[in-house]
């Protein structure tokens, strides 16, 4: 449980939502079989969400952000 305790509430919401999405469209049947109890379901969802976000959430930042930062730096330099 140690790892779960350290999850911030807003992150947990994010992980849960991602987990639900992943479960619903990714493997509802398999998931349901493996999830007999509510607490475990929540943990599984959170784990799924974390994995799903790690899988797809590692997208590089917006390209415009890279450019905007260069402009901001240039402006700061004078």
């Amino acid at each position: 449980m140690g790892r779960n305790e350290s999850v911030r509430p807003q992150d947990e919401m994010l992980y849960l939502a991602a987990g639900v999405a992943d479960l619903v469209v990714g493997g509802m049947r398999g998931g349901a079989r493996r999830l007999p109890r509510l607490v475990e379901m929540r943990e599984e969802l959170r784990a799924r969400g974390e994995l799903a976000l790690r899988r797809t959430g590692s997208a590089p930042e917006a390209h415009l952000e890279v450019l905007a930062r260069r402009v901001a730096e240039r402006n700061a330099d004078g």
Partner: protein
Amino acid sequence: MDRYTDEYMDGLRLKGDELADATVEALFAGGEVARFNTLMRWFTTSGQALPEGLPDSAGAYLRVTAMPPDWVDWTLMEQARQFFIDNDAHISTALAFAAMPACYLVPHVAKLLSATHSLDYPSRRMAETGQFTVYLMQPDAFEAGGRFLPAAQKVRLLHASIRRHLRQENQWSEPVPICQEDMIGGLMMFSIQVLDALYRLGVHITPEGAQAYYYAWRVVGTVLGCDPAVIPADLQTAREFSDRYMVRHMGPSAEGVDLTRELIEMYEQVVPGTLLDPVVPALIRFLIGDTSADWLQVPRSRWDSIIKIAPTLLGALERFEDRGPWASQLSDRLGHLVTTLELSSLTHGRVMHYAIPQELKTAYGMPSAPARWTPPPSADL
């Protein structure tokens, strides 16, 4: 990065659209603008006979620009259409929430949009450009009966008349409003920057699909009066032009803030209730990044972190589509609904008449995509 030096780009700021500018000049000089506008209301499709009584200068212009460029590779155009149909919802999301705000990030573009349409709704000008994607993707876009080319012919003249108007009234601080640099810069927003946004959203696109989509915009740019010799030839050079253009000009402006607020309000009205209202600003912030979003004063909310699951959701949706034809069909329908909602609100319902034809979905099957396109990296600027 030697190609697009400041000197080169400054040179493009002095160029408008010679052919369209000369046509508009002749129409004004001959006092024929009102007659021309009345006659042109009836001219909407390719192959239609030109209205009788059209001023000579306008007739010459309409005849010269009646055909698509002769270098167009129609196989690539079909691939582009296929790409658009497969990604319609994602592309219209990127057009609305990445390309439009990108326009507002260029202060003089935002100022021009506000100056020319302060009494109308200002985002209309760019919205209509976005709508060209939809026109373009009609099977008969370039054939007799197609609406794309006549619309483009009119837009070129509209741009030319804005140039003339702003110059005459001394309302513009620069020599040429809607210059080649801005037109091609705008083209970059609707092409490579849309592909950047799709990549950020986690949409799986193939290198061939990305190239075909870009190619279609090169054709659109040419038809709209961009100099074909200047339009970047491929995605790598497009990256260079796009980055150089943005870094030269992007920044905050009062007009950009106003236009962004208007864009967000427009979409908030589309979604019933208020619960989901913060989704639109969150999506814009996600796609353009915090620095630009702060310049445009895109409001922050709790949704800013939740929206980060968008790529996960879209990835899940793609796997869902793989489950079979029924899932794919359902997802296509959802996608079509999103496109209709997003583009139609941008254009205040106009796009409803130009719905994407369903028959192409079965006519052209997109091959399963092994390779994934990634945007060319940014060069040193």
